[in-house]
């Protein structure tokens, strides 16, 4: 179990750092949805399936959709 937890934490921090460096906001949204995906796995491994389910249902679909709508309304590239 510790293997997959370590690997998942590594992915999560990597994706979060890549949010800092991406200039295209779409890429940042993709990376933040990856952060939410890995956070779900960590909640699951911490024996909290309720929280994992809430994070899955909200982080993977709703938050991504709302960010995409806001980016469509404003502008895509960070200057």
């Amino acid at each position, binding site marked *: 179990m510790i293997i997959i937890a370590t690997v998942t934490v590594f992915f999560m921090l990597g994706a979060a750092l890549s949010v800092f460096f991406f200039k295209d906001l779409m890429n940042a949204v993709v990376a933040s949805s*990856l952060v939410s995906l890995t956070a779900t796995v960590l909640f699951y491994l911490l024996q909290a399936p309720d929280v994992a389910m809430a994070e899955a249902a909200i982080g*993977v679909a709703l938050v991504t959709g709302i960010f995409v709508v806001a980016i469509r309304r404003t502008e895509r590239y960070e200057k």
Partner: protein
Amino acid sequence: MNAITILFLSIICLGLFLSFLRMLSGPTAPDRAVAVDTMTTIIVATLVLVAFILERYIYLDVALVYSLISFVGLVALARFLEKGF
């Protein structure tokens, strides 16, 4: 949690790692989205495997949420990229 499951989890981690590298280095936005799609599918399988290792039947519901909902966010990204919606 015996040797076989440790082997399975290690192989899954290798696949996840390669997709993660594609997420970091993909030249365009669709590349990264495809990488996240792949990681989602792999993670659904991982969740079912971990539920088997922990021997809890009720944990399968989380995998069910992923298998039904995960395509909505990716479809939102795709519809933005093809300038629809």
